[in-house]
């Protein structure tokens, strides 16, 4: 017991069932070592078909130009930027779970962090597609890079939030990949050392980078993970802050709002956790990992959903209040007329947003609802629909009627190729996630082993003995 930190008996176990270290390895490596099920193949086929349709839609856009989308000079940002912000928001939960909860020493993160980090990476990949293809002449995309060029050495404008976005999103993607992959190394090595098939030995031998589990390597690994977490925490906040600057630094009524950064970050965490719930409820069922991703995990994440959903709700109210209090006619038009008036052209979208994001998550105040898988899955989808509408409301309802009524837009609805592009990113996301869940351990093996003797069901009983010790003996043990 000497090296085990004390854990309260009041806390329910994070790993159910009678597990040993070996059993943990077997359980988590099973999905990788088994043949994929029929369900996996069906899902994979659908995902690849969606991806194909997306590639076709984007190809049309590249050949014929942005005119393939129903954007026009008033609504210049429509579905594309809505989807960009939506995917980026989803990509925030992974880093929140892995980095912020690591810094806060939350043991429950170990069950869900690997899958959530993978989700983050794939969501950021999907998000990145939208601004890239929205450029129109995408073959000139490298113009955003600062390099000595022949255009009179014309540099990008470093004062522009759009350029900040380029740096923020690409840094976020890089750091997320590094963090995720460093965490994967020991687990890939565990699968490599279990492998019987030659191809598997080769693949995991290659991807594990020759990890041996040496104590010195673990020491460096722990240090690296902790500092990457420390860097990723302000990074994840900065990314959505900068995304919100794309709007907040403009002079468009409805965008020009100082509460955007915290409001966007809360919304991002909100939608990200909803996506984690959707994915993990299916993953734990399909791969029979209910003992590692327990109801306890689902419960905790639902608490975060109700918290962040309510923060978002307060942000909506503050916006309306400020619009009224500012006595600025343009500001008040954007909020009271273009949004909150249900009879205005996009009023319906505002009320879908309010009911999905603020009202419906309130059922999670009830413990029974938080622990109901069907309700949780349903709600996770509702929340993501609501969060999509939030971005749509912010973007479209702020710009479709601007200062001059003669420039007011006709009703904007997307073309099939805009919708196709969005569906294509779903294809990309699920193709990547399904491949990940087949070839990589979806749960952080070594981290589960790390908390097994503290939070495992069969070990929790022994932890109570620490309560009977003298304070001196307890302090001595804690010192190790």
């Amino acid at each position, binding site marked *: 017991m000497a*090296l085990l930190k004390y854990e309260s008996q009041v806390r329910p176990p994070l790993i159910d069932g009678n597990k040993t270290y070996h059993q943990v390895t077997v359980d988590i490596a099973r999905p990788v070592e088994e043949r994929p099920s029929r369900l996996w193949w069906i899902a994979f086929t659908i995902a690849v078909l969606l991806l194909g349709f997306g590639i076709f839609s984007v190809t049309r856009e590249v050949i014929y130009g942005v005119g393939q989308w129903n954007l026009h000079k008033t609504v210049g940002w429509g579905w594309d930027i809505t989807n960009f912000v939506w995917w980026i928001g989803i990509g925030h939960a992974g880093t929140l779970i892995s980095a912020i909860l690591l810094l806060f020493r939350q043991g429950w993160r170990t069950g869900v962090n690997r899958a959530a980090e993978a989700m983050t990476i794939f969501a950021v990949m999907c998000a990145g597609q939208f601004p890239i293809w929205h450029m129109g002449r995408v073959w000139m995309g490298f113009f955003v890079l*600062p390099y000595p060029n022949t255009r009179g050495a014309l540099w990008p404008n*470093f004062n522009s939030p759009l350029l900040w976005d380029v740096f923020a999103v690409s840094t976020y993607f890089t750091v997320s990949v590094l963090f995720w992959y460093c965490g994967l190394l020991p687990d890939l090595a565990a699968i490599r050392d279990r492998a019987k098939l030659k191809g598997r030995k080769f693949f995991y031998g290659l991807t594990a*980078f020759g990890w041996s589990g040496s*104590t010195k390597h673990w020491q460096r690994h722990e240090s690296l993970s902790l500092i990457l977490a420390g860097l990723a925490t302000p990074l994840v906040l900065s990314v959505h802050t900068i995304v919100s600057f794309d709007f907040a630094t403009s002079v468009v009524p409805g965008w020009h709002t100082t509460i955007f950064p915290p409001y966007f970050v809360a919304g991002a965490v909100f939608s990200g956790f909803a996506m984690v719930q959707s994915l993990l409820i299916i993953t734990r069922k399909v791969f029979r990992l209910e003992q590692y991703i327990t109801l306890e995990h689902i419960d905790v994440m639902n608490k975060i959903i109700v918290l962040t959903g309510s923060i978002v709700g307060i942000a909506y109210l503050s916006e309306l209040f400020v619009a009224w209090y500012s006595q600025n006619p343009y500001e008040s038009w954007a909020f009271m007329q273009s949004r909150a008036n249900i009879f205005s052209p996009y009023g319906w979208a505002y009320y879908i947003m309010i009911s999905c994001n603020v009202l419906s998550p309130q059922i999670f105040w009830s413990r029974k609802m938080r622990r109901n898988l069907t309700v949780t899955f349903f709600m996770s989808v509702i929340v993501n629909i609501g969060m999509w509408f939030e971005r749509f409301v912010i973007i479209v309802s702020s710009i479709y009627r601007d200062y001059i009524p003669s420039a007011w837009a006709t009703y904007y609805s997307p073309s099939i190729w805009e919708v196709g592009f969005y569906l294509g990113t779903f294809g990309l996301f699920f193709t990547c996630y399904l491949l990940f869940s087949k070839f990589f351990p979806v749960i952080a093996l070594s981290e589960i082993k790390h908390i097994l003797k503290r939070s495992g069901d069969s070990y929790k009983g022994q932890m109570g003995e620490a309560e009977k010790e003298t304070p001196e003996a307890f302090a001595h043990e804690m010192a190790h």
Partner: protein
Amino acid sequence: MAIKKFVVGSFEDEAVLFRAVKKVRSAGYKLHDVYTPMAIHGLDKAMGLRDTSIPTAGFIYGITGTTTALLGITYTLVWDWPLNIGGKPHFSLPAWIPIMFELTVLFSAVGMTLTFCYLCQMAPFVRKHHFSLRSTDDRFVMVIECTAKTNEEELKSFLSQAGAEEVHTQMAETGWWLGSYSRNRKSFENPNAILA
């Protein structure tokens, strides 16, 4: 690198391993390394390893990133091609903070990860000798180097008494070589060594 002789002891419980590490060190044996399936906090201290310098490296990479961003933006927007953007000053530091921050994080993260891989000698196609395949699964494997002074039999019984489940001797290459894990192990290994 050199091929050396090692006595390898596998432990089932980390608490037993901790006590054994202390005993082995106080008995004066040359502890080569301990291989564990997960990070064990405090084991590095018990083994007498010094702290890692990764945080220092990360800090240096980080300030390199900040400096690169600041100098780069200053060069482009102030010196090389000053543009009048809305009448704002050319040197508009507050607007550069986001990119300076991002580059700090980027340089630090990439640099630290590469440093980590370099220090641990890890890369694709890098092949190392693994003393026990179960050290990534459920065994804590202590490896002691046999020097000229070491009495091998005495060491083996010492390890068994310290709580090792299984003790054996292996000849091993201490460095790394290029290869792949799907191929057979190197021929210098003791064919009688128990590797399961």
